[in-house]
């Protein structure tokens, strides 16, 4: 119940953000719009970090899997290839 309430708040907040300009007549201040461009990389990287350190210490298995996935990305691999390579290495290595 608590989790569905959480999802509903996220959904309501998202709809409010999207409708404020499309349904309403508000305009975003340029300075905020400029700063918000940097939120996406910060958020996604923070999510990666929180998973790496989620168990109280840094997961070696996670670091190795992410390093391999990053290498795959550098070589032009897509998301599924990155996931497959990262998980395969994590399974193969006795970490």
């Amino acid at each position: 119940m608590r989790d569905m309430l959480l999802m509903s708040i996220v959904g309501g907040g998202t709809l409010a953000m999207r409708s404020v300009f499309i349904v309403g007549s508000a305009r975003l201040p340029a300075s905020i719009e400029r700063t918000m461009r940097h939120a996406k990389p910060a958020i996604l990287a923070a999510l990666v970090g929180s998973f790496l350190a989620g168990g109280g210490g840094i997961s070696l298995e996670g670091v190795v899997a992410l390093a391999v996935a990053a290498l795959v990305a550098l070589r032009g691999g897509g998301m599924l290839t990155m996931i497959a390579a990262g998980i395969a290495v994590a399974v193969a290595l006795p970490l």
Partner: protein
Amino acid sequence: MTAIAARTTVTSSPALDGVREMAPAAVGVLPFATMIGVAIGASPLSDLGGWISGLIVAGGSAHLAATASITVGAGFLATVVTALLINSRSLIYGALLAPSLRTQPRWFRWVAAYALVDQLYALASSVVDRSDRYVRSYYLSAMGVLWSTYMLGVGAGIVLGPVVPASLPLSLAIPIMFLSMVTPGLTDRPARVAAGVGLLAAIAGAALPAGTGMLVAIVAGTAAGAVAERRADA
């Protein structure tokens, strides 16, 4: 986008145009949606609740982030703010599309706002100079294709998740997915600074209570990116 505009000029049915243009993007969403379904299956969320929350949250990245935050036990406020921050880029999409949608009926503007994710913004912005009726049909059909594919993918992931052997560290797929989403955007120094500071701050702040380390990391990363951009401009 030029190719899209050219194709939409040739055909006469806006609904078919919307389906045709969205289909490749919808196929691209399928593996992502499936992995979100797997993440839901491994989370404390009920299968039905997790699946329906895809329609409630209305944004794949935020849906995954909220599910992941619940799984790692992040605090209520931290999870809400994290998911809303992820969806906050749609504020910009809304601001950019709004002038073209002012003459549309109010019901459509609500629907358009509800469904406004990256792929829909990209397609809708290529047809906003067409008639209101054309834009409406195009948007609704593209939205139908994208969202039905997304929900099918999430459902498939929930169903298929338990079939996968427990020895496979599938939870690693989640940070790798985030990694795959962040790397294409690291094309300039401010973005790299924002991501680097966000990553390190999240690791450093992992021990902070109620998931507040994540919030600190997001604020620090965003601020660092803005400072880096200001320095680059100076």
